[in-house]
């Protein structure tokens, strides 16, 4: 017995290479992408069902249904339920049909089942007489999303004719929506990086909004109070002031967390209120421009971030600075030993301490950097877009960035992508409101759905039957308290 056992050799270790880059990217992106898709589908239903014309037509059709229509309607519901049930357990059905039931087979079976179900339901609904309702709903949804795309990316026909005409003003107008999306994305990149960096250190920085305000205050102050500097000095100085102001606002909760264990969520929220009221007071008092409105003076021209195109295109240098900062943060987190420490403290503080890392120092450093990035978002807005600071100027960039960092999985490049998306949605939403009469709140609903699906990846995995949990899933923050 033992001898036969001895003859068996344990298989040697085989050196498996890391999965190829495209595969890792796909694995990282598939959940957010599917979450986004699902959110837009659900958003579409909400748009359709909140459209009065659709609802009227629906009520009208139902009131004219005959018994046969009701019977068919019940059949439709059964088809729908049947389709869902079949697509839940493809392996079982395939095996009944004497297929091997492999992953690939069941995947195709599933796709076909879903498509057939949708087709059958639509055909039945049309037969019953819901055709006009479906058409109305379809036009409501496409109208809304069309306006969203046009408002954020521009009208392709307009772009083509403008390019053909060669008229610089026409070209500028054609590209205006895209440029506005990029302008809106810029503060999102900074603030998203701020929150993502906190997450990597196991910190939940809810204070990005407040840090952003303080950054805007300090940079606007440097922007208008210092005169006579060349732009090459004034711009870095103003940006630096913004970063410093934000860093100070991040330092306080970081220090409290590191020294006395006060939870950063509470303290960053409180610091937000201090920042809001402080800026209100400053804009009504010491920093107020002469006149009735509580607004700061305009910054010097030498502190303005240069714009690349004539008005009305506001696209400015800040976008490229943001991209550069994102690359720097990526390098800092994943290539430098400081980043290694911050990530280790975030992933397992006990092991970090065991490995001789200074946890308090790393928490303070991470909060300061996070605050500095959020401060840069504020500085970017005043130096690149507004040229002055008004009350409540930010309208929630800092809060949206929490969602955005989650969507970007706390990776700098993911954050950039998510920021582009959020900026696009934000600038396109305005147009959607004007053209399609869809309240801009639907954008917020879609954003909220995206976050819900990201935060509960189990839903997406269940819907799309993604079996394997993504490798190396990031644990964002630890529980309350310790």
């Amino acid at each position, binding site marked *: *017995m033992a001898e036969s056992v*001895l003859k*068996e050799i344990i298989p040697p270790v085989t050196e498996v*290479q890391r999965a190829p880059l495209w595969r890792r990217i796909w694995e990282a992106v598939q959940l957010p992408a599917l979450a986004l898709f699902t959110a837009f589908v659900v958003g579409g239903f909400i748009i359709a069902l909140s459209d009065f014309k659709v609802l009227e037509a629906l009520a009208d059709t139902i009131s004219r249904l005959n018994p046969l229509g009701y019977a068919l309607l019940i059949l439709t519901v059964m088809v729908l339920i049947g389709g869902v049930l079949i697509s839940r357990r493809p392996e079982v059905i395939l095996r009944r049909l004497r297929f091997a039931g492999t992953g690939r087979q069941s995947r195709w079976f599933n796709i076909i089942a879903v498509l057939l179900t949708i087709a059958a339901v639509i055909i039945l609904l049309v037969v019953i007489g819901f055709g006009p309702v479906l058409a109305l709903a379809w036009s409501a949804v496409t109208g809304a999303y069309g306006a969203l795309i046009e408002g954020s990316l521009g009208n392709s026909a307009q772009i083509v004719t403008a390019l053909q005409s060669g008229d610089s003003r026409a070209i500028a107008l054609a590209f205006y929506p895209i440029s506005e999306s990029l302008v809106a994305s810029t503060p999102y990149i900074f603030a998203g990086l701020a929150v993502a960096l906190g997450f990597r250190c196991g910190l939940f920085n809810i204070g990005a909004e407040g840090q952003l305000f303080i950054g805007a205050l300090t940079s606007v102050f440097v922007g208008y109070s210092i005169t006579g500097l060349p732009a090459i000095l004034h711009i870095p100085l103003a940006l630096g002031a913004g970063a410093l102001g934000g860093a100070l606002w991040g330092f306080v909760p970081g220090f409290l967390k590191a020294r006395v264990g006060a939870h950063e969520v509470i303290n960053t929220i409180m610091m937000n209120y201090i920042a809001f009221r402080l800026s209100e007071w400053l804009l009504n008092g010491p920093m107020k421009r002469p006149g009735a409105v509580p607004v700061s003076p305009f910054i010097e021209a030498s502190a303005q971030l240069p714009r690349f195109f004539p008005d009305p295109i506001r696209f400015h240098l800040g976008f490229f600075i943001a991209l550069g900062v994102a690359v720097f943060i990526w390098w800092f987190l994943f290539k430098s*030993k400081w980043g290694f420490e911050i990530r280790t403290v975030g*992933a397992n503080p*006990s092991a*970090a301490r065991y490995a*001789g890392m200074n946890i308090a120092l790393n928490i303070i450093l991470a909060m300061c950097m996070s605050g500095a990035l959020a401060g840069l978002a504020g500085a970017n807005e005043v130096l690149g877009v507004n040229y002055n600071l008004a009350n409540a100027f930010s309208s929630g960039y800092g809060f949206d960035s929490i969602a955005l960092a989650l969507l970007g999985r706390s990776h700098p490049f993911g954050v950039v992508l998510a920021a582009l998306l959020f900026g696009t949605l934000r600038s396109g939403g305005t147009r959607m409101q004007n053209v399609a009469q869809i309240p801009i709140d639907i954008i917020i609903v879609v954003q909220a759905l995206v976050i819900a699906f990201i935060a509960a990846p189990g839903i997406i995995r269940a819907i799309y039957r993604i079996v394997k949990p993504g490798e190396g*899933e990031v644990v964002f923050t630890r529980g309350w308290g310790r």
Partner: protein
Amino acid sequence: MAPVLELRNITKRFPGVLANDHISFTLEAHEIHALLGENGAGKSTLMNILYGLYQPDEGEIIVRGQPVQIHSPNDAIKAGIGMVHQHFMLVPVLTVTENVMLGDEMLTGGIFLDRRSAAQRIRDISKRYGLEVDPDAYVKDLPVGVQQRVEIIKLLFRNADILILDEPTAVLTPQEVNDLFKVIRSLVDQGKSLIFITHKLKEVLATADRITVLRAGRVVGSTTPAETSEASLAAMMVGREVSLEVDKAEPQLGEVVLSVEHLEVLDERLNVAVDDVTFDVRAGEILGIAGVQGNGQTELVEAITGLRKPISGHIRILGHDVTHATPRRITELGVAHVPEDRQRDGLVLNYPVADNIALQEYYKPPFARGVVIDERAIQREAAALVQRFDVRTPSVHTPAGSLSGGNQQKVIVARELSRPIKLLVASQPTRGLDVGSIEYIHKQIVRKRDEGAAVLLVSPELDEILALSDRIAVMYRGRVVAIVDAEVATKEYLGLLMAGADPTSVPVPERRHKRVEVVT
């Protein structure tokens, strides 16, 4: 009579792994059937299939002659199958009764919890099977051994008659292990059938009626305690002869490396955990610290490695006073630390193996140049160490958390022992590991000692202490009650001291015969 439970050709594949390969297994009525295997042999997968947590890719489960489909733990309980997990599933702030009722609440009037009759049933069960427990006690106040009884009562409360115990002795003291074995016996005597998962050979031989050994997802063989021995079971598990004795030469003593003087350390609740402890460890020797867990060993080790500040006394390493030094400074003096809780302190589980290898030295060459981390250098070094220390991992990019416990420990051992160290502090270096890994890690520790390092070994396992140590210190209630030469120490003598006997009243045993050296 038909077996109560039969598994036929159970196969389960995970991406890249064949966890269970056509496993067939029967459990007779009134039987204790031990399922033995190294970590990663497929024991847990098999039991999770039986408990409805995984679905098998192939094969059938037959309970009392009827084929059953088990899709969830609820199905398992309906089929009379219950499982006690290695990590208990209890709510600490609830009472025993409330914990037992969870998920199977007895109600009066349809809405009110009927705690009284539930408590009565628990008393009946505990009387019948000798499972002493107070139904009104809060779980958080109970010792681990009693918590385990609560888990067993939970299953009996739900009328399970096929009980699965997953590594039930891993968390118990020797006394509690004996109690558990009595309980197991009485359960079987009263008609229950039991599957006992473990990798501890002695326990299997002492309790099981039948033994099935798994290796690499397959059944290697079935046997009974009468027909087999520790050595042949170990060989079946590992696939080669395993030497259970540690082979070591006379110590070559050098200078004093670690010197601890009148050390006093507090625990979290500010109780004195280490009380006036004094000892030296010299280069080339292994000082073993024996003691039941929770007698100050943890705090002592943390103080020596800089993770906990002593309130008085001195710690010197190679003449440097490190009483208040940081962990980093102590590491840089040439100290390696294999921590007691590998998952909490020793590893970052979602980091790849490579980054875990670099955890102690990530900040200096060759792993870092300036502030830039050299990933290639780290991966090269990690690949070399994985090879040298026989870490079974798909690659150095695999997250450490997805390795088995033994391989996680090997990652730590590889990192700590590959450095040129002067002092090794090893705290329970083989806790929860299988024989193959234990043998390997023991050899590595002895090799470090022979290379001239001082070794401080802390372990509640007397076998381990006796096998490795040159001198043995016994800790009881924070004090070192005796330091004896390993050659005069017997298990009985140490056991008495560990239990708190007065060292002056315990006769020191005769010098033992020199250990027979096993040639491998």
